[in-house]
Structures are given as C-alpha cells and as structure tokens.
C-alpha cells in the first residue's frame, strides 16, 4: 500500500514536471495555417500542441466555464480583450498574430470582377456573409457595403453563416452566388484557387485583428510560452502570410 501510494505521487510529480504540452483553442478560420505551424513547432521545440478548432464565441463560453485551454487564438481582438479584463488571461501576453483579409468570392469564374462592381449591379439572389453580430469577417463585410452605399439595397438578400466556414459553404454549393469570406479560405498556393474574387482593400473596413492570449491556466506553462514566441517567429510569419493573412 505504501509502495502504491509512493508510486502514485511519483507519477503525479513526473506529470507536473513534464509540462511540455499545451492545449490550444484555435479560431476556425485559422485551422489550416495553425496545423502547419503546430507541426513545425513540435518538430523545432519538442513541445506538444493539442489543437481544438471552433468558433470564438463558443470558445469564450467554454473558457469562462473552465475549459482546459492554455492558449487561445481568437478570430477577433475583442474576445481576448474581454477575457483579459475578466482576469482569465496572463496579463501582457496578448498580441495580434494575424490580420484577416476580406474577400468577395464566387464559385463561378468571372462572376466577381476585380473591383467589386458586382455589388452595385446587384445581379444575384443571395449574398452570403458571416453573421455580423458574432463574426468579425461579417462585421467587416457590413462595413464595406456601408462604405460603398449598397448596404440597404443588399440587406434583403443576405444569408448568414454562423461562421466564416459555413458562409463559404453556401457559396461553394452555389446556393448563394457570392459571399464575403476570408482570403485564407480560398487561397491555394498563394493565390485565389477557384472561381472569381475581389480582395477587398483594407481601407474599406476596420482591420480584422486576430489576437492570441495565454489563458490563466497556462501561467508558467513552458509549452504555452514557447508557442506564443513561435507564432512571432519569421518561420511562422511566412506560413501565416502564405495563407492570405496580413501581419
């Protein structure tokens, strides 16, 4: 019995000492680049990164309710700031790891012109965008249309995706002729892969900053700190850019 107890404490101590694993909550739009970055990170540092992908709002609710994440890569900058204010993060750890690029995209080649004039012509039944209430890309899209003076005329044709991935799905299946999505979703080998797109100039909307933060449970976690540093590295930056994000 004594031996068993000793063994138990020994293994517990070993587990604590071996804290080279980090649980990461990643915004869905950053799925592809983060997989590439995590693979390099594990190879280069020997730490382990376990990734969970999902919507920022859901992660927020889960983190508030004790979800075991140490690092959070959000799709916006307001959610990490909110968590910081609520004391759920390691102060000073927050930084912008990527800036999203908005694109108006259609699965049909030639449907979207290079200047976005299609919005003014309005020759379509459905325009897909992420729910502006919950998704930063959706809010940015609304801003753009407002600036172009087409918001009111287009609003009745909105179909809202719960997130940017679902918005893309509406467009891919042709149910919506076009939609505002993240450039990262339609990039292939550094350029827009299929269909037609208008990369929306950054000046037309507030920058879509995606912030990362170490959560309270990641305090003192070596792997968490290492990952945050790694995201700032040139190697990571190259990957992030290749997926159509700005920095």
């Amino acid at each position, binding site marked *: 019995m004594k031996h068993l107890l000793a063994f138990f404490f020994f293994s517990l101590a070993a587990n604590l000492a071996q804290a080279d694993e980090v649980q990461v909550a990643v915004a869905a739009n950053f799925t592809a680049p983060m997989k590439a970055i995590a693979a390099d990170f594990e190879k280069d540092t020997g730490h382990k990164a376990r990734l969970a992908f999902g919507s920022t709002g859901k992660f927020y609710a889960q983190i508030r309710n004790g979800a075991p994440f140490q690092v959070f890569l959000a799709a916006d900058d307001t959610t990490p700031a909110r968590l910081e204010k609520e004391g759920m993060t390691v102060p000073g750890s927050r930084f912008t790891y990527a800036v999203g690029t908005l694109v108006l995209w259609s699965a049909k080649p030639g449907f979207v012109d290079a200047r976005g004039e299609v919005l003014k012509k309005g020759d379509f039944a459905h325009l897909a965008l992420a729910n502006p209430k919950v998704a930063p890309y959706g809010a940015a899209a609304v801003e753009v249309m407002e600036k172009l003076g087409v918001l009111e005329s287009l609003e009745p044709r909105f179909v809202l995706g*719960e997130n940017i991935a679902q918005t893309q*799905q509406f467009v891919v*299946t*042709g*149910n*919506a002729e076009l939609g505002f999505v993240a450039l990262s979703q339609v990039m292939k080998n550094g350029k827009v892969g299929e269909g037609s797109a208008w990369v929306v100039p950054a000046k037309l909307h507030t920058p879509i900053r995606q912030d990362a933060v170490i959560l309270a449970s990641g305090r003192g976690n070596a792997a968490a700190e290492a990952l945050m540093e790694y995201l700032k590295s040139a190697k990571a930056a190259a990957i992030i850019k290749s997926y159509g994000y700005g920095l």
Partner: protein
Amino acid sequence: MLSDANLAAILLTLKLATLVTVILLLVGTPIAWWLARTRSWWKGPISAVVALPIVLPPSVLGFYLLVAMGPNGPVGRLTQALGLGTLPFTFAGLVVASVFYSLPFVVQPIQNAFEAMGERPLEVAATLRAGPLDRFFTVAVPLSSPGFLTAGVLGFAHTVGEFGVVLMIGGNIPGVTRVVSVQIYDYVEAFEYADAHILSGIMLAFSFTVLLAMYLLNPTRTHK
C-alpha cells in the same frame, strides 16, 4: 419580456413545426402502414433510410440537403425546372428539410401502433363488409390513436428542437429561417446571455410540458 426578434423567432418556429407535423402525419402514415404490413425484401432498406436521421449528425443531413437542393443539385434542378427557384434560405426549404429530419419520429410510433394492432381487427372488419379504406379509417386509425398522438407530439417537438439542419440550409434570415434554436445560438455567440437564457428557458419549459402531456395522456399502451 419578449423582444420583437424573439417573438418573431418563436412564431416562426411554431409555424414551421405545425406545418411540418401536418405534412409528416400525411406522408408518414402511408409509409408506416406499408412498413408495418409488408413482407417485401425492401422493408429492411426502407426502414433503415427512414431511421437515418436518428443516427446521422444533422450536419450531414444539412450538408447533403444543401448540396442536393442547391442550383447544381438534383432537387435544385427539379425545383428550378418547375419555376420554384431553389429551396435553401427559404421557409419552404426549411419545411422540406424538417420533414426529412423528423420523419422517423413520426413513422416509427405509427408503425409500432399498426404492428401492435395486428391483422385481426382488420380481418374482423373485412368480414363485417368494410372495404380496405373503410377498414383503415374506422379500425386501424382509431385503434392506433395513441401512436398517432405520440407521433404528432414527437414530430412537432423534434422540429422545434431542430438546429443543425436549419443552420446549414437556413441562412439565418429573420422571419424566414431564423428559428428559436438558431436565435439562441446567436445570442450565445454574441455574449448576449440574458436573451439566451430567456429563450432557452422557454424551450426547456415547452419541451418538458409537451413530453409530460404525452406521458399523462398516453400512460400505458392498452391491448385487446
């Protein structure tokens, strides 16, 4: 207490569930009748297809419906050829999707009731001069009424509780496809927890009441 948006979502949900339940009873009853009585080899495959929504993630069903009803899908081509446009992002599309999604919850209780009734009452009715339709309406339906009640309640409640499929093909349009479950999801995503609580509480109370009523009205299956 209820905002206009919440009220609109609730009314839309009730309208959807009512319409879907009526359609399901009309469509599901012949299917249940056939399944309860056939000895065909097809009984197995058809039963499995009807039951699919029970085990399939709504996202799978929603995805297929989105593709099939889209402009390039088979259903979409048909509806376009008929001059109806495409179904996603419309109330009609939601109705169609919900009919598929809730079908097993209506077919199975009715089928069970028909099976429990057995052949005998119908034989008796035949010897009393009742033709096939006559037998169906004067004997099979009344004897299976608990099954119909259960089917109606489950079909209605399941449609009200539907989320994944609506999310996939609805497009979240206020008054057209933004039902209560989607509305709640939006509130949670947007940190508007107070509204989320109100609507969630209503849903919980509704679901409990409906199920309680069903169990009280239909305590045990009476045989003989």
